[in-house]
């Protein structure tokens, strides 16, 4: 009750502070003093403080199951375990927006502290642009999705947190992902302010690179956690489904990756400036667009919380205000730097980075079109279509081949102008990878030719980065690690998709099912009662042709608040492959529908993404840029 009031009024105070902060910093902008007024810093901290108070009081209401709060009532239940009560705070529309706001205010405060060496006007303008975003979110939160709505009469029991959201990977994935999404807001504000101050320079690149890396690391981890959740909890037997919301998180990742590479160029020489600004703007706009697509309910997906058009219209208008604002600033203030400096020699590191950028943009446009096209078509011709994995696979996979080749060769080149040295070893590696992939695939799969063409560049990248990692030792280690793990990621994904085995059948207790590589035996059924759900556990014994025996126990859970049936897959993980079994009820019959899958190298997908973000982290912690 009290927490409710405190939370609500801290939000209003936070909004008021936004205006005060803007006024004070505008005054400070025209002041000739060195350095930012201390007041601005303290006000910014105060704002962050109020938002955190508000967030904590929402958490408190969730912990206490205070059902006089509408958000708590809709999303919690007294029988929920404590951990999920807390994670319920951001597992819903209102709470997750509050989290957005929390990260926004946290990041701008950190930015102010950490940017002491930067020009004062640039810092203040960044703060002002960020305040525009913050005010927008405050208004959105207070007007359309107040997390502290009061309910009377006070209900006795809540409506429960969706049971598929009761999973540890999911519970921590929104905060991590948001750190990435919202982190890009700083890049957005900073690049706009750098444009107005004509400060897009080498120093700026060094300073903004840190923020890009922070966003990139969190976004990478966030996407991975989301995908882990989809794999373990949704039980669809895969880790990436090209679901609109997954796409929406991948799009800013692509622009952010492109931006990261361009900024490395800018650190060396003044080039690609317009492109860098456009990428910075695009990254945040895509994050916002993601919020819009997810929160407005315009798309149907596992993630859509809200089906309230009013909210959608608010974010939509806000999104386009920001787009037009940044377009205006870009066209008004941006000056192309000296033209002849912009020339890039075709055989240089810059050129290869630029080429990879084009590929990334191509992937981005495929995903963007695949995600938004159904909306356009629905509005224009009232046809409902859904764009599925085949579309993405057909359009993306072939272009991975040149992408990987450029990625292998690019880091070998020098800045500005270079000659290819060690041609011999590069060619030898290429031939080895072709032969290797051919011999591996010959026995395993029918589609040898296409898969060989696809796998060889992945192997090529793998060999070259492995060589770099061990031979070049500590020279640019972070880049070597990141590229190495990316090649590992692609190899695991490719082998995973080529070599997966799947069996779907109906089976009843005591029955055996034979397939060409073994046998599935449904031994017995066990029933259990838990605090917030009842469960049915199937005992399966799987014989491999090689004499290996695996026991798997998939589970069906019947949650009571709200009544929902979920199926929990049982997954046995080894270094080489995951075995995966999930069962579902067949209505009105004693049969169970089971899906048995063997997925090679699953764990390597997660490991390589972890390594990938480690590469980013190392680059962030690195003190000096190595030549």
């Amino acid at each position, binding site marked *: 009750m009290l927490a409710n009031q405190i939370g609500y009024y801290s939000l209003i105070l936070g909004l008021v502070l936004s205006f005060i902060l803007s006024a004070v910093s505008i005054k400070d902008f025209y002041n000739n003093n060195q350095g930012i007024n201390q007041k601005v810093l303290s006000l910014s901290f105060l704002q962050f403080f109020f938002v955190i108070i508000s967030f904590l009081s929402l958490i408190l209401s969730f912990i206490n199951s205070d059902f006089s709060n*509408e958000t708590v009532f809709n999303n919690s239940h007294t029988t929920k375990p404590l951990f999920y009560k807390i994670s319920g705070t951001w597992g819903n529309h209102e709470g997750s927006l509050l989290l957005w706001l929390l990260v926004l205010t946290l990041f701008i405060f950190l930015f102010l502290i950490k940017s002491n060496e930067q020009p004062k006007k640039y810092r203040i303008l960044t703060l002002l642009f960020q305040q525009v975003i913050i005010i927008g979110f405050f208004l959105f939160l207070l007007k359309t999705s107040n997390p502290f709505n009061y*309910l009377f*009469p006070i*209900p*006795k*029991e809540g*409506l429960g947190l969706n049971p598929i959201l009761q999973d540890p990977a999911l519970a921590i994935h929104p905060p991590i992902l948001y750190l990435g999404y919202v982190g890009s807001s700083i890049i957005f504000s900073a690049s706009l302010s750098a444009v107005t101050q004509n400060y897009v320079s080498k120093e700026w690149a060094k300073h903004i690179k840190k923020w890009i890396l922070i966003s990139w690391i969190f976004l990478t981890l966030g996407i991975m956690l989301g995908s882990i959740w989809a794999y373990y909890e949704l039980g669809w037997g895969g880790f990436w489904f090209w679901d609109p919301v997954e796409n929406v998180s991948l799009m800013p990742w692509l622009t952010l990756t492109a931006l990261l590479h361009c900024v490395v160029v800018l650190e060396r020489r003044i080039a690609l400036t317009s492109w860098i600004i456009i990428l910075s703007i695009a990254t945040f706009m895509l994050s916002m667009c993601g919020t*819009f697509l997810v929160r*407005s*309910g*315009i798309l*149907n997906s596992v993630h859509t919380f809200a*089906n309230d*058009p009013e909210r*959608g*219209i608010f974010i*939509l208008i806000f999104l*386009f205000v920001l*787009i*037009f604002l940044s*377009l205006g600033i870009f*066209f008004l203030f941006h000056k192309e730097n000296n033209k002849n400096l912009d020339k890039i020699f075709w055989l240089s590191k810059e050129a290869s980075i630029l080429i990879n950028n084009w590929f990334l943009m191509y992937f981005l446009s495929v995903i963007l079109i695949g995600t938004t096209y159904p*909306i*356009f078509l*629905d*509005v*224009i011709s009232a046809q409902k279509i859904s764009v599925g994995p085949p579309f993405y696979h057909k359009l993306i996979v072939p272009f991975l081949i040149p992408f990987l080749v450029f990625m292998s060769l690019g880091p070998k080149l020098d800045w500005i102008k270079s000659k290819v040295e060690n041609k011999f070893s590069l060619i030898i590696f290429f031939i080895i990878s072709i032969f290797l992939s051919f011999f591996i695939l010959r026995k395993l799969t029918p589609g040898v030719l296409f898969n060989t063409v696809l796998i060889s560049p992945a192997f090529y990248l793998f060999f070259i980065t492995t060589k770099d990692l061990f031979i070049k030792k500590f020279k640019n280690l972070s880049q070597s690690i990141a590229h190495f793990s990316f090649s590992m990621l692609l190899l695991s994904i490719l082998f995973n998709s080529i070599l997966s085995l799947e069996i779907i059948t109906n089976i009843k207790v005591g029955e055996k099912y034979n397939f060409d590589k073994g046998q599935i035996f449904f031994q017995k059924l066990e029933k259990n009662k838990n605090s917030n759900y009842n469960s049915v556990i199937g005992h399966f014994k799987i014989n491999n042709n090689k004499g290996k025996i695996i026991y798997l126990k998939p589970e069906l859970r019947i949650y009571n608040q*709200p*009544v*929902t049936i979920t199926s929990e897959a049982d997954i046995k993980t080894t270094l080489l492959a995951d075995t995966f079994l999930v069962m579902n009820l067949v209505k009105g019959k004693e049969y169970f529908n089971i899906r048995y899958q063997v997925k090679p190298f699953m764990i390597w997908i997660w490991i390589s993404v972890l390594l990938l973000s480690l590469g980013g982290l190392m680059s962030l912690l690195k003190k000096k840029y190595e030549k």
Partner: protein
Amino acid sequence: MKNKIFLFIIILFFIFCFIIFYKGLNNSNIYTPNINNKKDLPIFISKDFYLETEVNSEKIFLDNNFYILNIWASWCVPCRKEHPILMELSRNKSIKLIGLNYRDNLNNAKKFIDELGNPYSQILIDEEGTLAVEFGAYGVPETFIIDKNKKIIKKFIGPLNQKLLKEIKLFLK
């Protein structure tokens, strides 16, 4: 000059996107799954809201009418919103509205009806929430249309609105 044309085209493009998204938002996105094989009404015994006597489901759906079964509760905020629509529906003579009071405090529920009016020809009590489950409900409010052969032919998840009201009226014709 070139830049200005470029800017103009970009702005036009974004305005176009804005219009599309804006229109897309107003399209209803509530998909009600089409039930292909119509579901039979469950057979149950429940309590009457006012008389507190036991009633048999077969006696409720006796008339040769269309029935609409609406699951509601006094603590359910969206129910309050959809109530005027139920009141409007109740004026239609060709249908009978049955209310199912879901996991509620009886006093609060009676106050709710006193305050907002009673659209239902009969109200049943589902104290434990088991009946709603038998109907296959996900939560409150939910509305089921039952045809003359006593089969559930359509269900609406979430509160009714003017758009769905039109849809229901079309259905009844």
